[in-house]
């Protein structure tokens, strides 16, 4: 029998090692797997490379993992969220290595990683500092930058519903990076509000087929930045 459901966050987060590359879904606080991220803090890991859209608050979600000293490198498109000073000169996190990636390039690098495509050409960032040192090429008279795929050891994912096969249904703009990150990691761990019986999810609404998922943990009332709706 296939059963990807695990009993709690500790089991869900087991066997992640120091120095791992970890991707976490979420845009703003929507779709951010905060219970998994905060749970990772208790693993007391060091030297993580973190990949995400950006920090929403210094002491919450991805920001908490960074300010706690677990992260040595952050790959993000909007690393410093509105109202935060994280990574700014003079802050305790200013020394963390930062790779700022255009948001669409970040998404496509992650998607490519999960799809087995090692790189791709994009017009985004051509001629800008974010393409510095990268291979470029003209195709049909237009300039493009070669971007490499991103894969990770672990993906932390937030969805609304799952079944024991790991099929996932998302909620609204909480989908964002989650489906593509789920594809691109060796170990994909998902928190959902409810795990339902096999067959209960409408196959037409499953945005992440279970093939991409390794562990699912039920967190009925997920931790959110804005409290309960």
């Amino acid at each position, binding site marked *: 029998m296939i059963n990807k459901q695990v009993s709690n966050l500790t089991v869900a987060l087991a066997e992640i090692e120091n120095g791992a590359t970890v991707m976490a879904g979420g*845009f*703003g*606080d*929507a*779709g951010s797997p905060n219970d998994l991220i905060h749970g990772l803090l208790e693993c007391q890991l060091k030297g993580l490379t973190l990949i995400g859209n*950006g920090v*929403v608050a210094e002491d919450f979600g991805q920001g908490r993992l960074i300010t706690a000293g677990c992260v040595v490198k952050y790959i993000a*498109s*909007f*690393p*410093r*969220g*509105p109202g935060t000073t*994280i*990574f*700014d*000169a003079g802050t305790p996190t200013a020394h963390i290595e*930062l790779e*700022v*990636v*255009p*948001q*669409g*390039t970040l*998404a*496509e690098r*992650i*998607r490519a990683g999960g799809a087995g495509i090692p790189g791709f050409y*994009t*017009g*985004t*960032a*051509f*001629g*800008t*500092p*974010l393409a510095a040192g990268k291979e470029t090429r003209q195709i049909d008279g237009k300039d493009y930058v070669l971007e490499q795929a991103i894969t990770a050891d672990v993906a932390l994912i937030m969805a609304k519903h799952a079944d024991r096969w790991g099929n996932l249904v*998302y*909620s*609204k*703009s*909480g*989908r*964002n*990076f*989650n*489906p*593509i990150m789920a594809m691109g990691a060796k170990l994909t761990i998902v928190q959902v509000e409810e795990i339902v019986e096999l067959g209960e999810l409408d196959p037409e609404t499953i*945005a992440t087929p279970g093939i991409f998922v390794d562990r699912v943990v039920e967190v009925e009332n997920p931790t*959110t*930045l*804005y409290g309960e*709706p």
Partner: protein
Amino acid sequence: MTAGPQKKGMARPQIAWRAAQDIPDGAIVNLGIGMPLGIPNYIPAEREVILHSENGLLGMGPPAKEGEEDWELVNAGTLATTLLPGGSYFHHADSFAMIRGGHIDICALGAFQIAANGDLANWNLGDGVRTPTVGGAMDLAVGAKRVFILTDHNARDGGAKIVEECTLPLTGLTCVDRIYTDLAVIEVTATGLVVLEHIEDMSFEELQDKTGAELQQSADWKPLEAPDLD
């Protein structure tokens, strides 16, 4: 329109109003943070326009009312928003496929600097102090069919934002199509910056003095006007 006694020119909502008049019926539009977010308030009611938000929404509605926020439904500025009937959700790679793939008709962005050839700098002040945050700006700059810039004509210190060549880190090359400021509407053309409209109580020469790149006055230029807006 009224101008403040101390400063000639349009207020920020009026800049958004003016840009909104150029959004045609049926357009798919992406709006950057800041002044562009005011545009939907002023699109003529008979036009049906679909708003795209890069975090995975098409058919985005107005901001959520206070007390009715659903934090699973946010816009590109991570503020609570709404979805209109006909709207859809999709993941980030699909969202930027829409952008990069040329499916977005108009993108309206803010700017630090715009060059005479349409180069745009709007993501990084390059001061080494604040962390640069690019978000989706570079993808939008190259991917949208038309790029509108909404900006104050001059920086707070009076310096020019429209310049011969950008000195700040670039967002995209030759990507800007039209610039809406408190003083003028300017089209970026292959032969330079053409002023389509400028405020009536400022001469073309005075406008040129406030601009760091050479301007051409369109033969059929019009006064830049907008209604009084609260």
